[in-house]
């Protein structure tokens, strides 16, 4: 029975393209919240790789990893955005170029 007609390579390529878009976003944007969203996108690209390998190999380890990545992403969202809030209280800005208190 043929379950699937998309080869694994296409999923991997799509995931690589998404990861790169996220990387370029992290490197070019200066709004800390958008950088945070780009990191979420990179995590999702990796999740797609894990799920596609899990499905093509018939092994559930990949999908378990996706769960743990999602739990870590949720914790990261709560703590990361709290850091952005705390930073905004001190510096009144979320643009990462203007936050240079650790620069000497």
């Amino acid at each position, binding site marked *: 029975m043929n379950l699937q007609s998309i080869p694994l390579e296409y999923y991997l390529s799509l995931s690589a393209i998404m990861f790169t878009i996220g990387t370029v976003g992290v490197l070019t944007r200066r709004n800390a919240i958008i950088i945070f969203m780009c990191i979420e996108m990179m995590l999702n690209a990796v999740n797609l790789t894990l799920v596609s390998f899990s499905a093509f190999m018939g092994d559930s380890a990949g999908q378990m990893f996706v769960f743990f990545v999602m739990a870590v992403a949720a*914790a990261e969202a*709560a703590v990361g*955005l709290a850091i952005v809030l705390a930073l905004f209280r001190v510096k009144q800005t979320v643009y990462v170029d203007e936050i240079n208190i650790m620069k000497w």
Partner: protein
Amino acid sequence: MIDLYIPLIIMVAVGGLFGLSNVILAEVLGPRRTKTKTKLSIYECGMEPITSARERFSVKFYMVAMLFILFDIEIVFMYPWAVQFKVLGTTGLIAMGLFMLLLFAGFIYVIKKGALKWD
């Protein structure tokens, strides 16, 4: 096997098209009136609008949303446990009890810290 999802795909497509078509049809079929600055301004019972509608939210909303995420994850992990409850038996119950216990400690911390107090 993706054919199993065809009803779902149709539902999503119909839902999206319905929303989109309503916006487009309202624009096409609706009466075209001249748009002046006064007509486009926000209606506030005849008063002049005082401030922008984009007001800053209070940090209390953030607290609720943040705790929602963390306890949402807890619920997500409870789904597969609930489905396989009979198969997993006592081991699963103990595992889930330990998981809940640690998160309950977090919940007690939240209450003690007064993070959900509204005033």
